[in-house]
Structure formats: structure tokens, C-alpha cells
């Protein structure tokens, strides 16, 4: 059991948690993740470690409530416990002084890009960050990104904040303006990562993405997270999660991530229904008392 010491929403359905896990806080490096199980009977899901604080032994994770498990997690608050936290998993990001590095975060992907952007900055890179969202409230961690970047460009699909358009639009603009870019890290929804990969390939810019397949154990034992990179099967949990974007087969990744769509929908409906019932029975109790 791990205690949540801080929990706050930083965007719509996007919540930041600081969780006690001293050993992981001490060991983790940029790019690594944890597997979390919210409650007994819960599923094991991977979440990237956004940050850590060794002084109080906590790790930071940022969660977007999409399915049952993430929505359940987002209902928890400071003082609550999660059943299991294990990590740090995966290989750390490869960090070196490339020169100019662009870190791109799409939606909650910014939380995953942040620790690596920070490490790139510490390694001496000139860091440009592009952080995108559907609209202004979906652009997260802007202050944190500004602290570790030399330039930050928020983008929104609807133009409600920053650059009007996708992150790829802003990236194209930078390339067109003649900026020399030596390294790109792109993390976000699969279509975004695929679009960045397509964009940078003709320019030959080294581009890395972090993959987010379905996992169970996270230690290489089940093979459920397998993806195709450079026409070879890889296990994302032990061989990744970061790979050369130009070699990733995004089509297979997209299809595999849809494996449990039906069950996930069913599980979420069941869960929300259960919570509605709890809410209404509590409401009725109150009414009766009144």
C-alpha cells in the first residue's frame, strides 16, 4: 500500500498525484515508469514517472481519467492509499548533449515528456518545448516546462491559447524558419507521435517516441506489450519504452491498443453506474433523515 500525499487536478480529468514510494523516488531516471494497481482486484496499468522528490520519498504521476482504472484513481485524494506501486520500470531515456533538442508533449503526454526535457536541459541541450492540447485547459505543466526549457510554445487545436493548430504545425514552422534541430522527443497520442515521425523523417532529424501499449506485469514476463520496431518484435516494458520514431510500426500499435475497447467500455459503464447508485442511495438516506 502506498499513500497519496498530494492530489490535485491540473486540467479537465487530468490529476497530479504525489505518492509515497521512497525506493522508486531514489532510483528512477527520466523516461521510466511504474505499474500501479489501485485496489485489490484492480488491473495493473503503466504510468510514467513525471518527477520525484527524494527529500520526502515521493514520486509524481499525472493521470488522465479515460477508463475505469484511471477514473477510479482520479477519485482518490491526499491521505488515500493505492494498493500497489512497482518500479522504476523500463530503460531510462538516452540522454546526451545533442545540441538543440525539441520536446513535444501532446495532452497528458507533456507529463511524460517533462522529465526527459528536464534531463536534456541538465545535459546542456538548448531545449525547445512544444506543448499541445485540444484547448487551453488541456495544455498542462506550462510553468514546469518553462523552467527546464529555453523556449516554450503552447499550441491548441481550437486556437484558444498559443499557436492555433497541432504540435506538428508548430514544429514545421520551426524547421521552415531554418532552426537547426538535432534531436526531437515526441510523446502523446499515437496519431500525434506518428505525425511527428512522418514529418521529421525526410529531414533526417533523430526522433524518439515513448510507447504506451497495454501491459500486465511490466517486467517482460507476459509479452502483452509487444510492438514492432524496425520489423522486429520488441517488448516495450523491458526493451523500451522509448524507441526511434522512424522505425516504429504505429499501425500495429494502434490496432493492438484497441484489443479491449469493448471490455473497457463495459467496465467503465459498470463502474460509473455503481458510483451513481452509491450517490443516489446516499442522497436518499439524507432525504429520509431530513
Amino acid at each position, binding site marked *: 500500500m502506498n499513500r497519496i500525499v498530494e492530489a490535485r487536478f491540473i486540467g479537465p480529468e487530468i490529476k497530479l498525484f504525489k505518492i509515497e514510494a521512497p525506493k522508486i523516488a531514489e532510483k528512477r531516471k527520466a523516461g521510466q515508469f511504474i505499474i500501479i494497481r489501485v485496489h485489490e482486484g484492480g488491473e495493473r496499468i503503466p504510468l510514467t514517472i513525471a518527477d520525484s522528490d527524494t527529500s520526502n520519498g515521493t514520486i509524481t504521476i499525472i493521470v488522465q481519467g479515460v477508463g475505469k482504472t484511471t477514473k477510479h484513481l482520479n477519485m482518490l485524494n491526499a491521505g488515500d492509499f493505492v494498493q500497489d506501486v512497482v518500479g522504476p520500470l523500463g530503460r531510462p531515456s538516452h540522454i546526451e548533449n545533442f545540441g538543440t533538442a525539441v520536446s513535444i508533449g501532446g495532452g497528458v503526454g507533456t507529463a511524460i515528456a517533462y522529465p526527459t526535457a528536464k534531463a536534456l536541459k541538465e545535459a546542456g541541450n538548448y531545449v525547445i518545448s512544444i506543448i499541445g492540447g485540444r484547448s487551453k485547459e488541456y495544455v498542462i505543466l506550462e510553468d514546469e516546462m518553462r523552467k527546464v526549457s529555453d523556449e516554450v510554445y503552447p499550441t491548441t487545436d481550437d486556437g484558444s491559447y498559443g499557436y492555433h493548430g497541432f504540435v506538428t504545425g508548430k514544429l514545421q514552422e520551426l524547421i521552415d524558419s531554418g532552426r537547426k534541430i538535432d534531436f526531437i522527443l515526441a510523446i502523446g497520442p499515437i496519431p500525434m507521435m506518428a505525425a511527428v515521425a512522418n514529418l521529421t523523417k525526410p529531414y533526417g532529424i533523430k526522433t524518439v517516441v515513448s510507447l504506451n501499449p497495454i501491459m500486465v506485469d511490466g517486467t517482460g514476463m507476459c*509479452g502483452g506489450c509487444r510492438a514492432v520496431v524496425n520489423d522486429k*518484435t520488441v517488448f516495450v516494458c523491458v526493451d523500451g519504452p522509448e524507441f526511434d520514431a522512424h522505425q516504429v510500426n504505429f499501425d500495429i500499435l494502434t490496432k493492438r491498443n484497441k*484489443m479491449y475497447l469493448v471490455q473497457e467500455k463495459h467496465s467503465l459503464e459498470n463502474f460509473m453506474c455503481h458510483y451513481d447508485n452509491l450517490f443516489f442511495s446516499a442522497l436518499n438516506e439524507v432525504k429520509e433523515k431530513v
Partner: protein
Amino acid sequence: MAELSPKDRLKIPRQHIPEQDPEIRKHNFNEVNLGYTPEMAMLEAQRCIMCKKPLCIAGCPVAVKIPDFIKMIAEGKFREAAAILKEDNALPAVCGRVCPQEEQCEKVCVVGKKGQPVAIGHLERFAADWERQNIGIQIPPMKEKSGKKVAIVGGGPAGLSCAGDLIQMGHDVTVFEALHDIGGVLIYGIPEFRLPKSIVKAEVEGLENSGVKFVKNYIIGLTETIDELLERFDAVFIGVGAGLPYFLGIPGEHLNGVYSANEFLTRVNLMKAYNFPEYDTPMFDVKDKNVVVFGGGNTAMDAVRTALRLGAKRGIIAYRRTEAEMPARIEEIQHAKEEGVEFMLLVAPIELIGDEEGWLKAVKLQKMQLGEPDSSGRRRPVPIDGAIEILPVEVAVVAIGNGSNPIIRQTTPDLKVNKWGNIIVDMDTMKTSKRGVFAGGDIVTGGATVILAMGAGRKAAKAIDQYLRDPDSWDRPKTEQVEVAQESK
């Protein structure tokens, strides 16, 4: 009780263990074998002729004093029988269920030379179950505390058996487990109907009551390295299992509906996906679907029988050799057949065919015939030119074995491994190339059985005990060490 003559004993027929009816059990996850009644156990125990030089003990990887515990059962002294078992076996209720006795103790049983061997496995199971159900798992006698600390990496059969011995030898033992439950393959791999999880849990609790400490959700290599462990422990035993499933390397392996046996079984056993959505972990709904399992081992049988219990229309084993070459236990093959599993022999999958959305629809099978024997002594399957069959399936489970997990070797550069990534050890002592570090089980041998891993854990425990009491022994030549070990006996 009147003393029976060996002749009288040989007249008693082997007692068949009661089983759930196949027609009923194929729809539930309850245990298939039901276990002996005390009367049956006592009768079966009387079949043992108490050989002066028992071969069965040598046939057991952990050297259980078989005639001694059987004698106790014959006399109705079940408590004593269980105590004798536990002197050599940390997990008797588990081993009584999953050991391949027909290849070990029962294979060499003298009674079996002319008729059927004594049902040693069933008797072991009976004694362990009787203790657990009637008086609770008893704590074995302990040696005086040594003040030495041992870290065990991996809470599977090898680690648990090593822990069980070391705690009895007086050492302080901590087991580190990556998953959220203890037991390794006993909980994620072997299904409920063959080994109820409550039994694993009880045997682990027995070890806990003996003083073994368990740390879950802790990955050695990542959460803490072997080198860091050596700073706070006097010795380390690595028993992390194989744990990196092989795939076939054929087109279509990434289609939805294709699982490794590890993933398929882990979802069902450890994560209880058969209880979805009560439990959160989903799995492909195999109800009324066609499921094929590639492989012929116990894991393949476990997967296909699980599929049938989940409601599959057809559960098919596709194996590239014949039944005679199948590595699975005869009992498992028999049980699978009784439950309606179909066996397609002499076929090898060459392509998995999917639809545009990426869902598995069929498998292309190459028909084979047996050729010359290969290095394993089994006749090598060779393709029959042009003999191809298309089998419509929605789920395919790959159960062709495991490679070695990379986490320990990647984070412990001075630990010597072979070209397959298995840790190299001295097979007599299970010592690795790294001082104070021992290893055993599947991470050393590649995929094998629960009991062989337990045997390795025991062997290592003995060597660890010697090393802890005399650390200089590490560098001494092997012959001297053996002498010392014998003297200390």
C-alpha cells in the same frame, strides 16, 4: 494393526484418486483431483513394501524421506507424516499436486516394477492437506539463529524452497517478489483447477510463520540492484525464473487474439480475468470461439483447458510432433482429452491470418512428418511439401517456452551468463561467478519443472549455509568443499 507381508501389500490395488467428472469440471475452475480420504490414504500407504534401499528418495529432486512419511500414513499418524515431509520439502501440498512423480519417485518405485507404483504424489498431497485442514500448517523445528541475512530474489518455487531450508537452518531470510503476490508460476501460471491458489497462499503463510519475510512489488535489478543487496545481506539467491516468453517468429503474431501462454494464464490466474468485470483486468472473450494452443507441454495443456472453462467452442492443441514426444505429463494430456480438448498432431503454424482491423481469423498450418532424431533424441518434425491446412480460430496461444529475463543480467554486469542469458553456476553448489551470489531454477536451466527448481533451491540453501558459516569456503577448491560438507553432516 497386523503386520502385512510384502506379498499381502502387493495384492492391494493402487487407489485411484477421486476426480471431478469431466463433463462438470470443464465448466468450472475447481480442482480436478479431489484427494484421498484417510481410509484410502492408509490403504494406499500399506502398498509400500518399505525397501531397505529405497530408490524413491534418490528419484526425488528434494530427497523427501518417502518410506518414512508413508509409514506414518499407514499407521494413521498423519501429523507425523506431514512433519517428515516438511523436513525436506517447503511446499508439500503444491508438490503433491504438480510434481511429475511418474518421471521421478514413482518411476523408480520397486512396487511399480511388476504392477503400479505406490501413489507417492497422492499420499504427499494427502498428508499436507490433512495437516493444513486439521491442525494448521505446523512450524518445523528451527536451528539456533546464526545472525546471517540472506536475500532471495523471486518468490517462485526455487526461491520458496531455498527460503524454507535457510530459515530452518537459523538464518534471517527475506524474499523479494516483483509481482503483487507470492508464488511465481504457482500463482500466475498454473491454473486454479490444478493448483488452488488458497493452497499456495497457505504454504506461503506457513513460511511466513516460520519467520521468512516477504517483500512484494520489489524488482531486484530495478528497485534495488544485486550489488546493493550485497551491502545489506550476507548472501543472495537468484531464482527469478525464465520469464520472457518466446514467440513463433511468423507473420501475424501481433494480431489481436494472439497471446503468449504467460499472458493468457496470468490474466486468468493472477488477475482473475475470468471474473471480469468484477475484477478489472479484461481478456479476449473466448466464449463460443475457436482457440488453438501451440505447444505440447504442461503450460499448453493448462492454457487449452483454461480456454474450455472460459466457454470456448473448440480448444485445440496444435503440436509439431506426435503425442509420444509431448513434454506434458500423461495425467495432464489424459485430463485434457477427457474434457474435450482436440489434438492436432504433426502440424506447425506458419502464418497467422487477420482481418483489416487486426483481429485474428485463422492460422495456416504446415503438416509435418517425423524424420531423424535431433539433438534431444526426439525425432525431428519435417514439413510435408505442399501439405497446408487453414484452421479458423479467433484466439491463438503460444506455449513454446520461455527465454531468460534480461533485467538481472543487464543490471549486474559481472554476473556470468551463457549465450541464452541463463546464469552460469556450479551445478553442485549453485554458486555464480559473483561472490556471495547463488542462483537456481529456470533462470539457470531454462524452462523446467516446479520440483526441479525446488531441488535447485535446496541445493543452493545447503551451499549458502556452508558459505555463511565459513565464508572462506567460497574460494576453496570444490573437492575440499564437498569433504567439509560431508563432515558437517
